[in-house]
């Protein structure tokens, strides 16, 4: 073990029926590290993986690999958490008009002021940690924790498509209008999901994203 290995104990591996195992890790960084490792060194019989906040769901074909054998292989995988996200060349830019309904309250609760919130949001590179909730909805993370705000206590019944929000250390853009509980700080015309391009998602897991202030 080098001095850059994860400090935690072996991850819990939980059974999800006859078709998947859920690997529970201590942090999002650990999930991303494990996922990158398994992408680079695939286990025969693993058919799909779903990353999330603290877990990696590993779906498998029991004809190719048994649950027992897959547990062993996953337990033996101790990837090094180097950084969040792949060293990718392309950064997707998302222009944002910063006029969200919750911008003022986020400015106050973070102590940054409106200009400070915009500076934090646009001043760092975000990484798509995983998608979920709806097609094209990427959970974006960034190195700084200064924009970490709680979800709204009351969800909105309708958040318009293109709304840019913050919650629980993540930023995200709503691909279509839906109910939602994130703090809305702005909006974008860019579509997070479109069948007119391949891949249809703008920021699948692993994509680097930068927000740009589109002005008033």
């Amino acid at each position, binding site marked *: 073990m080098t001095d850059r290995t994860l400090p935690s104990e072996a991850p819990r591996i939980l059974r999800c029926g006859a078709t998947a195992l859920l690997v529970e890790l201590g942090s999002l960084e650990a999930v991303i590290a494990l996922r990158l490792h398994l992408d680079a060194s695939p286990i025969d019989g693993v058919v799909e993986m*779903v990353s999330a906040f603290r877990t990696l*769901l590993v779906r498998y074909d029991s004809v190719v690999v048994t649950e027992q054998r897959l547990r062993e292989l996953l337990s033996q995988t101790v990837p090094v958490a180097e950084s969040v996200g792949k060293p990718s060349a392309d950064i997707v830019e998302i222009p944002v008009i910063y006029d969200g309904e919750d911008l003022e309250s986020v400015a106050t609760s973070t102590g940054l002021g409106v200009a400070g919130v915009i500076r934090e949001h646009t001043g760092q590179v975000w990484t798509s940690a995983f998608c*979920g*909730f709806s097609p*094209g909805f990427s959970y974006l993370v960034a190195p700084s924790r200064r924009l970490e705000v709680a979800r709204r206590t009351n969800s909105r019944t309708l958040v318009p498509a293109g709304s840019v929000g913050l919650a629980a250390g993540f930023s995200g853009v709503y691909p279509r209008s839906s109910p939602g509980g994130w703090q809305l700080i702005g909006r974008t015309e860019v579509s997070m999901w479109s069948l007119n391009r391949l891949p249809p998602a703008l920021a699948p897991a692993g994509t680097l994203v930068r927000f740009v202030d589109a002005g008033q």
Partner: protein
Amino acid sequence: MPELRVLRVGLFASIQDRGRFGYSDMGLGSAGYADRGSAALANRMVGNPAGAAVVEVALGGFEIEATGAVILAVTGAMCDVTISGPDGRYSRGSAVLEVISLNASQRLQLGAPSRGLRNYIAVRGGIAVQPVLGSRSWDTLAKLGPEPLTAGAVLPVGTDAVSWPIVDAVAPPLTDDAPPRLDILRGPRDDWFTADSLDLLVGQDYVVTPDSDRVGMRLDAAVPLRRSIEEEPPSEGVETGSLQVPREGFPVLFLADHPVTGGYPVIAVLSPASVDRAAQLRPGDLVRFGLVGG
């Protein structure tokens, strides 16, 4: 090549195949046949590969007309199957689980099922509509795929058959009137519930509520399941067949169109064969769960 023209749709009908895989990183689920066993059987009966595109019909009331000679099979729920001539005049009766030959201008009608929910209609050669992101499945949650069927839709028949039918009919499964038993494997989050919860889950009848569709089935029972942990878990990937339990304590069973991640703890997951059985349950049906897998 012949086509199938849709003359009538009852409650709902869509095209489904094995599903759309590899897009969970974009938040897109797999969709596909709700009752995979019945769909695969229909395909095998007509000589298709098991994963070919078929029509999935909910609660019958469906009618198509062939524009050329075709071979079909209907599986799934028990319903009347009737064949008519071009003028709609009754020609002959058929049945679920029979291999059916239609000539040009003949029509096939499915009545409302007396038991079960979904029928699968396979045509030899497959249904050759344009795939979307690699699959011909309609995803009712993402609203993606070949459009759901309406009267007037024209379905091209493909050339994907791998063999010819080798039987005329398949024996129907034995059934009785007892609530079907659905096999479940405990976890991943059974430890989020009180110690008696698994006993409760297998010890009472659950009823299928009308709040049920291809995304999931809401179940009701006499006694709710109680959490041993107060806060909500962070969202995580979920499997088809998961019994996800919201605050109120009554499970939602995730079916083919379930979202990629879920925010409530999953107490147990159905075996794949039990998922297929569950996909045939109608509102008002009772079920019992049985623990397997140790």
